[in-house]
């Protein structure tokens, strides 16, 4: 495995960045008391110091604890929505791509129209309609409601190309029925591509959830990355010069997105070997 990573630097960088994140969270869990992520735990608006490595926010949260507790929450939203999105997407893609016919046109139509509509707008409308405040899990479901559109489209186009390949014809001739072909022939070949699509879906889901949270439509108590940025904006932290309040979440968001981004590039190369030659 290591030898392989040498030949695919993007994937290596991606995994490395996410590894840093995991280490940060693990070490963080040991060093701080997760309770400090709740308001009124520590004196407010302290600059970063030994006592508070990331400083503290206006509501008395220790930002280091908030990041250690909040980051997994945001990642969880991303992963739940991403995985849900890709699973539904893959099923629909195979149903459409493999069986074609009316089902295909309907699914393709919905996906295409869905993609032209700016996702965030629909998410905002849904988030606003939910009566009570959103919990982290509800947030994941809201984001997942649109997360399947892109995977459906991209995987369907892959299924169409695979469908014409020789070994699928051979499998069909040798009497394997639809699902068997899909599971034993097509999916194994699509795995790297599915991997890349999953990482992409997770990244898009995290982006959407942070977008919603920054607009104040997320779980107000949870110290997720998006909600921290909402409070940054609400308290005009920028103009008041509390720079540490937004540098920590933005640095972590950067780490998350860069990590996922390089992993996507790396996985793309596996799925599309021609790209590998000229990194």
């Amino acid at each position: 495995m290591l030898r392989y990573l040498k030949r695919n630097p993007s994937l290596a960088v991606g995994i490395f960045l996410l590894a840093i994140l995991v280490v940060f969270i693990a070490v963080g869990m040991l060093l701080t008391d997760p309770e400090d992520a709740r308001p009124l735990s520590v004196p407010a608006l302290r600059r970063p110091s030994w006592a508070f490595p990331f400083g503290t926010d206006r509501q008395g949260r220790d930002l280091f604890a908030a990041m250690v507790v909040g980051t997994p929450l945001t990642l969880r939203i991303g992963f739940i929505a991403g995985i849900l999105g890709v699973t539904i997407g893959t099923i629909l893609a195979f149903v459409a791509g493999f069986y074609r016919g009316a089902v295909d046109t309907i699914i393709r139509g919905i996906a295409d129209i869905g993609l032209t509509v700016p996702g965030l707008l629909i998410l905002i409308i849904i988030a606003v309609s939910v009566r009570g405040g959103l919990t982290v899990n509800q947030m994941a479901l809201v984001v997942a409601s649109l997360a399947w559109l892109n995977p459906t489209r991209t995987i369907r186009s892959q299924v169409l190309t695979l469908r014409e390949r020789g070994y699928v014809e051979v499998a069909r001739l040798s009497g394997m029925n639809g699902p068997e072909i899909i599971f034993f022939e097509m999916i194994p070949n699509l795995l790297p591509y599915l991997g890349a699509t999953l990482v992409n879906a997770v990244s898009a889901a995290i982006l959407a959830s942070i977008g919603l949270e920054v607009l104040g439509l997320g779980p107000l108590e949870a110290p997720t990355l998006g909600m921290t940025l909402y409070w940054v904006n609400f308290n005009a932290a920028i103009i008041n010069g509390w720079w540490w309040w937004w540098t920590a979440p933005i640095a972590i968001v950067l780490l998350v997105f860069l990590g996922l981004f390089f992993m996507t590039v790396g996985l793309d190369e596996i799925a599309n070997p021609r790209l590998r030659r000229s990194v």
Partner: protein
Amino acid sequence: MRLLYIARRFAVFLLIVWLAASLNFFLPRLSGQDPVRTKLLAEAQLGGYVQAGIEDMVKEYNQKFGLDKPLWRQYLTYVGDTTRLDFNYSISNYPRTVRDLIAEALPWTIGLLGLTTLFSFAIGTFLGALLAWPGAPRWMRYVMPPLWALHAIPFFLLGLILMYLFAFQLRLLPIFGGYSPGAAPAFNISFVLDVIAHATLPALSIVLVATGGWALGMRGMMVTTMGEDYVTFAEAKGLKVSTIFLRYCVRNAILPQTTALALALGQILSGAVLVEVIFGYPGIGALLFQAIRENDHFLIQGIVFTVIVALGFTTFILDVLYPWLDPRISYQRS
């Protein structure tokens, strides 16, 4: 053959518009909130003094906005009005009509979004093409990694950082709004410069992020195209390097980029909503956010409908242009 192709694409466009209109009608009503009541109560509360007789006032307003009719009647009038581009009054901004509000906000978004998207698409594509080209200058190698890194950041986060650096610390650029308060819009130089100054940070936060994306996409496509047989034969034909680069490689590699552009428009607008909200930019994004916050049914319907139609129309134009770009396409469809 061509007309049939265009007709079919237009039918798809109309279908999208109709679907958008219907989806658009039901979504705001999904939330089960009564916008008129919210508006009146918010206004009464502004003065801290709760009006007696709120219930009766709500009935009056509902009547005026036609919200008291049964849902299906509302839908019929809605579809009728939409065909005439009349989206009724904006509840939260009464007495201004939704159409006027959109007409005021649309140019800002088109200006910001249109220019930044085209700009980043052009630069990104060119950079990506150059990067894949072995003959490209050395320094290209060093431009790409930062652009790639920037591509991973969401628009509005970069916006926050730029706002902190340029507007707050260095006080070079205005921090907020579409133009400085008090400046009356006119076609003189000072106002235009003022608008440009205000648009710089939002535009930068979009361009810096999007360019990396287009560059990466194009690089991938160029690598694939350069491996094609017709490029090798072009070289064998002794064509100039520039001819091979532009008319053989870029000309073919740009085809999937344009499809990607059509698909990306929707997502770019999503990002722009946040940029507009954070920078207080008076575009469609900020207007929609305010409409949703105040649950203004008609304004939400008007904006989402306009956005979908605009996007649908752009996709339609790209669809019609595509065969002109790639002759193979029209051939297959007929």
